[in-house]
């Protein structure tokens, strides 16, 4: 497809930094050069329009240039993060015909060739993509994007997007802040951040690790303005008092999403970083990223929608209809109803046009017919001194159907039964009976997965 809106930026912002890695800073001119290299490279390897192509990479100048080249060539792109263990299976599900493996350590394709060392390794898989949705995109001559939805059970679902539609919104002029890469670009949030930054001449800063310490160090060093992140990451910043060790006052905005934010955590954060705007984001692999507007920095109420999006709430559950919604899943039935509405499975509360996400309907714990949202309980647990983090979930119970259980992160001094007693009393004061955790498990290690999101 025509990517003039990006190529113009590559020309106009020549001198600006596009990507800053721990080793090197790359200007937009560098990216432009790499884009040309990559286009040549695609020609040499016969990667044509409509080919389903995997990119196994983390953020790097090469990966970004390759992504742009594949968009320009109308390929169907399957970004695969290097940290994934099941990448082979994902490549199979997506029917990848070829895979690029980007090695972040090496400079350019041309240099790498000279050194006899491939910055970008390429191999064909022998697969001929035959899925009718893939062929449909190919016939229309538009680029595609396959993202995997992070289901906790069963096989990941491959959501196929028409990239020409998804990219439409980046053509609108806007400003871009100096942004730290946090969510990988195989995630709708990460992809959105990357494309927004690149199409508006902004800078992406990458870190060697996604651990809070490394990220905070980079924020201070590079004077980062925008941190797109998860509530779990922010909780870890609070726990380790990283805001005392690193100057985070350069942050103009912190956006958080992908999971529920405990109200208590948000209040603490906005008090610690009074000059930073906190904004909740909302997006799903299936429909893309919606525009949001938080009521204020310390509030979980937000307006959700924006151009090309319609929302409705049916029995407390949020439904979305989007122009840029995915074409469909490659390996699952269509989740859209006849009118094109998508059930987000997010329960919401409404107030004067604002929404508050209560949690996934699937996370809801049914205690003898009463509904309990883990986030509410977690927020109460976090108020007790000594509680560093908490994860609340349902446990089967022969009498109540389910009861509430809590895994609580504590310092070694508090790892004892007296502390459980204190937790019980605290919940007794603040929660209705059916909401109180029946069982507490104390732990001294963190409660999240590799994407810094709580395991549910």
């Amino acid at each position: 497809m025509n990517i003039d809106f990006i190529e113009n930026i590559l020309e106009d912002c020549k001198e600006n930094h596009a990507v800053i890695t721990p080793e090197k800073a790359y200007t937009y001119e560098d990216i432009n050069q790499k884009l040309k290299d990559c286009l040549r490279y695609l020609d040499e390897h016969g990667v044509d329009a409509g080919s389903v192509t995997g990119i196994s990479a983390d953020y790097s100048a090469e990966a970004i240039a390759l992504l742009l080249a594949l968009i320009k060539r109308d390929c169907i792109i399957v970004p695969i993060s290097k940290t994934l263990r099941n990448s082979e299976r994902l490549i199979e599900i997506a029917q990848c015909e070829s895979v690029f493996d980007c090695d972040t350590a090496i400079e350019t394709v041309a240099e790498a060739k000279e050194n006899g060392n491939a910055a970008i390794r390429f191999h064909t898989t022998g697969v001929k993509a035959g899925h009718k949705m893939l062929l449909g995109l190919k016939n229309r001559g538009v680029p595609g994007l396959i993202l995997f939805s992070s289901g906790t059970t069963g096989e990941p679902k491959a959501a196929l997007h028409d990239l020409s539609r998804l990219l439409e919104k980046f053509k609108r002029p806007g400003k871009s802040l100096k942004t730290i890469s946090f969510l990988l670009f195989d995630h709708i949030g990460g992809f959105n951040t990357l494309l927004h930054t690149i199409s508006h001449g902004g800078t992406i800063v990458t870190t060697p690790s996604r651990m809070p310490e490394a990220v905070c160090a980079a924020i201070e060093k590079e004077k980062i303005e925008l941190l797109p992140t998860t509530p779990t990451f922010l909780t870890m910043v609070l726990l380790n008092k990283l805001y005392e060790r690193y100057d985070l006052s350069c942050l103009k905005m912190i956006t958080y999403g992908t999971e529920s934010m405990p109200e208590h955590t948000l209040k603490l954060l906005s008090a610690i970083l009074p000059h930073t705007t906190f904004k909740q984001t909302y997006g799903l692999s299936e429909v893309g990223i919606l525009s949001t507007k938080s009521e204020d920095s310390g509030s979980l109420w937000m307006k959700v929608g924006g151009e090309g999006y319609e929302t409705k709430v049916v029995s407390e559950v949020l439904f979305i209809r989007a122009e840029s919604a995915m074409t469909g899943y490659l390996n699952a039935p269509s989740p859209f109803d006849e009118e094109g509405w998508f059930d987000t499975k997010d329960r919401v509360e409404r107030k004067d046009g604002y929404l508050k996400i209560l949690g996934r309907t699937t996370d809801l714990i049914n205690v003898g017919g009463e509904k309990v949202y883990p986030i509410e309980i977690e927020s109460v647990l976090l108020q007790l001194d000594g509680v560093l983090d908490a994860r609340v979930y349902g446990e089967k119970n022969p009498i109540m159907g389910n009861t509430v259980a809590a895994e609580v992160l504590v310092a070694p001094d508090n790892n004892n039964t007296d502390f459980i007693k204190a937790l019980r009393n605290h919940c007794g004061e603040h929660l209705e009976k059916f909401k109180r955790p029946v069982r507490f498990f104390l732990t001294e290690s963190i409660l999240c997965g590799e994407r810094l999101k709580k395991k549910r």
Partner: protein
Amino acid sequence: MKETVEELIQEAILELNEQMEEDRKVSYSEDLKLIGVNAALESISFVTLIAILEDLISDRLGKNIIIVNDRAFSQERSPFRSVGSLAEYVTGLLLETE
């Protein structure tokens, strides 16, 4: 053993009482009816009491037992009908693990 279990049940009831409203607090007696019609406890409080008791047993006696299991339901007379029958039932479970 039964005496130890009775003491632990007593302690569990005290701990449960700490999170109960004044008029809902229960006092320990062997005849105290735990579950069913006219029981002293609502089912969620009963479930919580059992969880507290299991924690106490694990903490003091080093034994991890599950009190509310299929067997408890298949008995002709519910072991949860009173504090006395609960003590007997739990003592039985503990002796089996020895």
